[in-house]
Structure formats: structure tokens, C-alpha cells
């Protein structure tokens, strides 16, 4: 069963719910090595996305994702606003005019999202940012799909890899974003952006697994 615009809406709804649920945790992570706003920032952004979704519900998947990205840019601020915003806009651009997605197109969209984040933020892997969750997630997805896994299971693997990537930021020295100002003191704390990225992938995996089960 292919991914439709309805499933994308379900994914965004699940993402918004998960971010809201984890808001305080994300803020607490940001308090340790940043400025204690990451949870509030994303929650504000996804709340705005939820309010915008009905107005594009009858549009193509590309439009829904671009609208999501632009809404995030316009409401989140901070570092994560332009980064996640660009990620969704780029994913949307990669899926322009599509009403149904193949498995490969899901991978394509995630790759476009990562490219967008790197273009905007210039972070490499290992610098303690959201890139350290998204990059391994894409690798895991690619590998699982190559091994013939169905999309839902493959995305579960991607979400696991993102979570592992987020945990792996703990011993890292931050070299990008606000946490870099702490120097050595950034070591020993999990990056908030990598953590929120893992939640977004978890929401995606959950939605697609349900699609498969429903199929």
C-alpha cells in the first residue's frame, strides 16, 4: 500500500503529539548545554503546523511538506527553526506534485531533508547536532530497504538508528550551535536537536508501520 497525503498528515499529527509529550524533556536537555528553549520552540512550531494542515489537506504531498517547512520557519525561530524548516521544505520540493509515494521516494525525501540541514547549518557528523541522528537513520533505512525489508520495518530500523545516534552524541564535544560555547563542558550531555530528530523518525516509523499493518 503506497503512502498517501493522508498518511503524511498522520505522520505530522503523530510528530506534533510526540514533541508536545516530550517538550519538557527536550527543554531540560537544552538547559544543560543550551538555552532551555528547544522543547518550547518545536512545540510552538508543530502546534502551528497542526493549525495550518487543514488548509492544504487536499493538496499534493510536496505542498503539504513545503507548507509544514514554511510554517516551522515562520514560528520556531532559534537554530532549529531554519534547520527543520529547510528540511521539510527540501523534502517537499523533492516530492513536488506527488500524491502517492513509493518506498524509494521516502528515502529520497529524507535525503533531501538532510541535505537541506547541512546546506543551512554546515554541520558534519560528529559535531553533536541533529545531523548525528538523521544521517545514521538514513543509512539504516537505505540498508534495510536494500535488504528487502518492507518500509515500515525499515523505518523502524531508521528510527532505532536515530535514537542510537542521539545517544551517541552524549560523549561528543559540541562544535556547532550554542552548545559549542561550553567547550569541554558540553561533553556528557545528549544533544536536544538530535533527540527531537529521533522523535520525528519514531513518529514516521509508527505511521508507516500502521499503514503496512492496515494493508
Amino acid at each position, binding site marked *: 500500500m503506497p503512502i498517501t497525503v493522508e498518511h503524511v498528515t498522520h505522520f505530522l499529527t503523530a510528530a506534533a503529539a510526540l514533541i508536545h509529550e516530550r517538550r519538557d524533556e527536550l527543554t531540560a536537555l537544552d538547559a*544543560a548545554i543550551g*538555552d532551555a*528553549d528547544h522543547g518550547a520552540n518545536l512545540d510552538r512550531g508543530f502546534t502551528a503546523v497542526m493549525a495550518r494542515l487543514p488548509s492544504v489537506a487536499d493538496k499534493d504531498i510536496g505542498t503539504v511538506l513545503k507548507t509544514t517547512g514554511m510554517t516551522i520557519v515562520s514560528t520556531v525561530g532559534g537554530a532549529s527553526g531554519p534547520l527543520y524548516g529547510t528540511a521539510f521544505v527540501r523534502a517537499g520540493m523533492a516530492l513536488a506534485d506527488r500524491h502517492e509515494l513509493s518506498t524509494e521516494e521516502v528515502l529520497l525525501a529524507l535525503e533531501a531533508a538532510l541535505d537541506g540541514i547541512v546546506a543551512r547549518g554546515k554541520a558534519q557528523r560528529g559535531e553533536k547536532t541533529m545531523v548525528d541522528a538523521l544521517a545514521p537513520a538514513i543509512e539504516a533505512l537505505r540498508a534495510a530497504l536494500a535488504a528487502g525489508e518492507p518500509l515500515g520495518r525499515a523505518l523502524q530500523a531508521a528510527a532505532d538508528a536515530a535514537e542510537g545516534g542521539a545517544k551517541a552524541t552524549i560523549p561528543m564535544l559540541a562544535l*556547532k*550551535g550554542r552548545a559549542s560555547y561550553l567547550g569541554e563542558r558540553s561533553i556528557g550531555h545528549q544533544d536536544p536537536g538530535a533527540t527531537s530528530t529521533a522523535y520525528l523518525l519514531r513518529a514516521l516509523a509508527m505511521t508507516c508501520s500502521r499503514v503496512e499493518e492496515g494493508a
Partner: protein
Amino acid sequence: MKKLINAPENVVKEALAGMAIAHADLIDVHFDPDYIVRKGAPHNKVGVISGGGSGHEPMHGGFVGYGMLDAACPGAVFTSPVPDQMLAATKAVNGGKGVLHIVKNYTGDVMNFEMAAELAAAEGIEVASVVTNDDVAVENSTWTAGRRGVGVTVLLEKIVGAAAEAGADLATCKAIAERVNANGRSMGMALTPCTVPQAGKPGFELAEDEMEVGIGIHGEPGRRREKLAPARDIAEMLAGPILEDLPFKSGDAVLAFVNGMGGTPLIELYVMYNELARILKDRNITIARSLVGSYITSLEMAGVSFTLLRLDDEMIKLWDAPVHTPALRWGM
């Protein structure tokens, strides 16, 4: 969390509403997107705008007015504003001579201003940007996000604002701004943390006998934790790295800016200023101008930052030029 607020999510809007009434002669406040704009904008000059997270008051909104900023874009507390705000403010102050964006060097501020500048350029507005990065507490900045923009931002906004008011063109404004940034250095410390309203808890914890040295302005922990020390030693800790970094030399004339972090009373700022003056005197550095007060803050944090700016004659002239904003006013 003990604050004079109604609901954490409304603090910024309600404070803006208060500012609009209290300073109705100087500014207008536009909501959604939020920005503070000088009365009568656009003016026939280069527009000068800044912006950043809220919680640093009076910066930047308190600096909107004659001879300083044309507009300021306040984000959520400690969160850079979104491009929509800077785009709307840029349009509102563009009098046809272009607009200068004054950006503090934080990843979020830089990216959001960048996006706004791209959008403004697409609408045919000439935009130049200057990024302040004066915080010497950030070492090894080559491989990282670079140094933070802190106290110099206030001085730069005043000096460039005066240049724009006097009719300098966009390229000249940008060049002066870069010269100010290049000649300024800052460092700060905290006695207590602060609490972001939406977070509800302090950003870090400090024992009764501890302080954070090398903090920024976002309630974040500093570079290192130290045992509480007398004013004299704290002054050395802050002034030392600043003086060595530029370096400031015997015979230099400086603007000495002693800034409170929001919860520090003026009496302590004068004690710290007294120590800084002694240090500068010992090195034969002349204090040509001074600023003592809480101008770039971290909510209710107790602490202090020092900023030294090496002055040339043009900077002095521009610093002394009339200014009339809610938080800085002289000569008119």
C-alpha cells in the same frame, strides 16, 4: 518560578504592549509578525534593524528611536526571531537607501536573519549584514560556531545608528559597524542562573559559594565554574582575557562598559566599574567614555559583563551624537 507575569507564553507580547503605551512618543509596536519600529518609519536614511531572543531587555527594543535603531525584532525568550519578523521590519524601515541588519553571532540568529535577507533581496531591497562576535570567553572559535555577540552589540547599535542618522550610506554604515565589532571585546560572569518562563526552572544550579565565568546572555552555563571571589578578582578574571585578546595597549582610549545581567543592583556595578577603572589605569589605558547599567541582560540573572571598545575620533563623535530611545537618551 517567581516572576511578575501572567502566563509564560504571553510574556513577550504583554511586555511589548506595555512598551507601546509607555513609549508611544517614540515607537510603534507591530504584532504578528512582532516588531518594534521607530515612529514615522521609513525615514530618508539607511534603515538599521536588529533583533534576537527576548529576555535581554532593554536590548533591542529599548534602542529603537532617533539616532539608533529603526526597528527591533523580538523572538520568544532566548530564541532568535523568525525571518517573517525581520522581513516585515526591513520593509517597514526601508526608505530606499537600503537596510543594515545587526546580528549577534548565534547559529539561530544568523540563519534566521540570513533567510530574511534573502527574502528581502528577492523583493528588491538592498540589505547588508554585520555579525557581532565580541565574546572572548569562547576560545578555539575557528572550528566551532565562532564567538558570541554580546556587549559590543549595544555600542555598535548606538554608533552605527548615529552614522545612519547623519546620512552615511549602506556601505559606510556596514564598514563602521565592522570597525566597531573589530575593536570591541567582552566577557561576562554570573552569580545566579535565570529561569526561562516557558522552562519554569533555572538553566543551571550554583552553590552559595560558586559562580559561572564566561557566560553568554542566554542563561546558559559558562566556560567554567569557580569559587566565588571578591569584586577585585572577578574584575581581573574578566578584564585580563579582554585586554590580551585585542590586545588593548598602553595609550589606547576606550569606552568602558560595565553591564549588569538583569538582577544585579547598580551599587555592585559601580563597585565593579571602580575595579575596572583601576585595572585600566594601571595599564595606562584611558577611559574616554563610560556606560554603566543593565543594557544587555539575561532575564533576572545576577552577574556582570565587561566590554571594552577601542575608540577612534569618529567613533567618539558618533557615540556623543544625540540619541533618543526608551533606554538610551542624550543630546535631545
